[in-house]
């Protein structure tokens, strides 16, 4: 084909609608500004410990949501047990530090690799399951892992948990963990972008849309699914390792909490599954929503109810996330919010 003809038919390289549509340039610029703000945030005068703490939590959640998006958003497998990878990452990092006496970074690598290997081992059999069956198998494995970690006292410390050394110098601790979380989330976004421009990205979306057709068209679906699962485990495992060292304490009940899975899914869903920035932005939206609701309904013991009500509202009104509204693809209106119900009610 000659150069002239190529110009005649411009090709949209937007990989699989991953990027903002419509106001692409403006929004990308806004995002870059926001990222820059986050990058210099600890240097700002009002960056108190409270804000660093909150943002570290949000960024860790964003990283996990970005990871969940690989398997749940792009590949379309409703993984409900990603907290298992978080827990394995936390235990892997913690145990390497206290039992092997390794430094934080090598331990973090061990934790993350352990999470990935685990994802590959369980992924090979369970990624053959579809729909509800896959979802519940992941819940079951995550719950079982929590129970095993809790009762395997000689290895994991059981109900007493394990205590990690403090980060030193301790006065930089807040900044250190903030930047770890920031880099992880940014790395996750870059990884998403990188994959979407590779064949792997196309195979994930093809599998989501029609697995049989994808398979027949030459896509090694098993490999692609296991990779999606393993990469989501990598993100959660790294987040778990960072979290463990940050809190200097690992307890099965805490790091295998099913609420964490729920939070990552919710962040991804709020922002928009199967989009690059959706899970990242969703993590912020999630925290803002929770904080606002807690503020207006200050009954401490009812936080879970608030979370539940948010999920119900999101599922009923905007399960495709807010990304369509933010990117200008759709106008935010009562009508747009009712569209979901019109489509899916009986």
């Amino acid at each position, binding site marked *: 084909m000659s150069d002239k003809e190529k110009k005649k038919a411009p090709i949209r390289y937007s990989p699989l609608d991953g990027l903002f549509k419509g106001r692409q340039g403006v929004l990308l610029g806004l995002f870059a500004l926001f990222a820059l703000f986050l990058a210099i945030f600890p240097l700002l005068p009002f960056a108190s410990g409270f804000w660093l703490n909150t943002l570290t939590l949000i960024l860790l959640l964003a990283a996990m949501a970005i990871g969940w998006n690989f398997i*749940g958003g792009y590949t379309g497998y*409703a993984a*409900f047990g990603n907290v298992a990878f978080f827990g394995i990452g936390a235990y892997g990092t913690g145990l390497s530090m206290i039992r092997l006496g390794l430094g934080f970074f090598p331990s973090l690598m061990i934790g993350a690799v352990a999470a990935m290997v685990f994802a590959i081992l369980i992924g090979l*059999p*369970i990624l*053959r*399951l*579809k*729909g*509800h*069956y896959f*979802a*519940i*198998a992941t*819940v*079951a*494995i995550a*719950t*079982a892992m929590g*129970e*095993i970690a809790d*009762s395997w006292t000689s290895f994991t410390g059981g109900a007493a948990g394990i205590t990690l050394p403090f980060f030193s110098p301790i006065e930089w601790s807040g900044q250190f963990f903030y930047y770890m979380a920031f880099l992880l989330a940014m790395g996750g976004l870059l990884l998403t972008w990188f994959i979407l421009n590779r064949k792997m990205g196309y195979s994930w979306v093809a599998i989501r849309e029609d697995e049989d057709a994808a398979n027949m068209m030459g896509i090694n679906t098993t490999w692609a699914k296991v990779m999606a699962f393993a990469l989501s485990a990598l993100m959660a495992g790294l987040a778990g390792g960072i979290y463990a060292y940050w809190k200097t304490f690992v307890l099965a009940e805490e790091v295998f909490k099913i609420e964490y899975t*729920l939070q990552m*899914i*919710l962040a991804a*869903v709020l922002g928009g*599954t199967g989009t690059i920035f959706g899970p990242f932005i969703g993590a912020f939206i999630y925290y803002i929503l929770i904080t606002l609701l807690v503020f207006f309904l200050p*009954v401490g*013991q*009812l*936080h*879970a*109810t608030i*979370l*539940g*009500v*948010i*999920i*119900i509202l999101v*599922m*009923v009104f905007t*399960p495709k996330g807010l990304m369509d509204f933010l990117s200008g693809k759709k106008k935010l209106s009562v009508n747009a919010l009712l569209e*979901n*119900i019109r*489509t*899916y*009610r*009986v």
Partner: protein
Amino acid sequence: MESLQFTQGIVNAILLSGTLTLVAIGFSIVWGILNIINLAHGAFLMVGAYITYWLFTLYGVDPFLSLPISMAIMFLVGYAVQRYLINLVIRAPLLVTFLLTFAMEIVIINLATFFWKGDLRSVTPDYAGLGFTLGNVQIPYVRLAAFIISLILTGLLHVFMTYTKTGNAIRATGMDIDAARLQGVRIPQTYALTYALGTALAAGAGTLISISFPIDPTMGGAYTLRAFVICVLGGLGSIPGVMLGALLFSFIEVFSGIWFPSLKDAIALLVLVLVLIVRPSGIAGKAFYH
């Protein structure tokens, strides 16, 4: 001693299987007909248990007599929940209904903990500790009664689904929703009715469980997972399948509880995953994907 424990284990497993059938059967019809995994199933069961507890504690109502009351209340609740909430998004992708029912579970458990506190409670009628021995095996009256009532309710459900017009409408809807609609079945109401049956059966199970075991607001989650395992074991879509699945599961649970007490749930869950992988059509061999 070993052999006594073994025989007692068998009897316990059989008695348990009755209640677990009741737990799983509501879950199974909701799954089979509405094609949703009702993660709030265990939460409704818990509410049923608390209804019995409060009726007994505040008004001295015999727990067995409260069975129809808790079932009726939860029937109405279930009907409303399906009609005015789940029906709104029932045809959405799996993730949506999954998260929706999960969120319902969170809300119900949290509210229950808030209002009723998180501590363990027991329903203790005078006859609670009584029983008889058969050989060396002990059989508590309440568990035997729970077993029998479970079987009766299961039988009634079977009769309802097979021989009544409404039951047939429900089954038709599960098989082919468009054909059912053409036959004049009102789908939203039928869905609500199906879900209501599911929650009522869950509440019934909750009542029976509350007589034999202590209860607390978080008791339900374990039962939801058990219901799922049982449906997987027995294969979806048949009442005998659920009974068989419940029986198998009861044996796994009772004996793993004897041999590996701290990993009771983990073993049940790993059995689930194993069955899913090895025999995804269930042990009873019914079609899994419909």
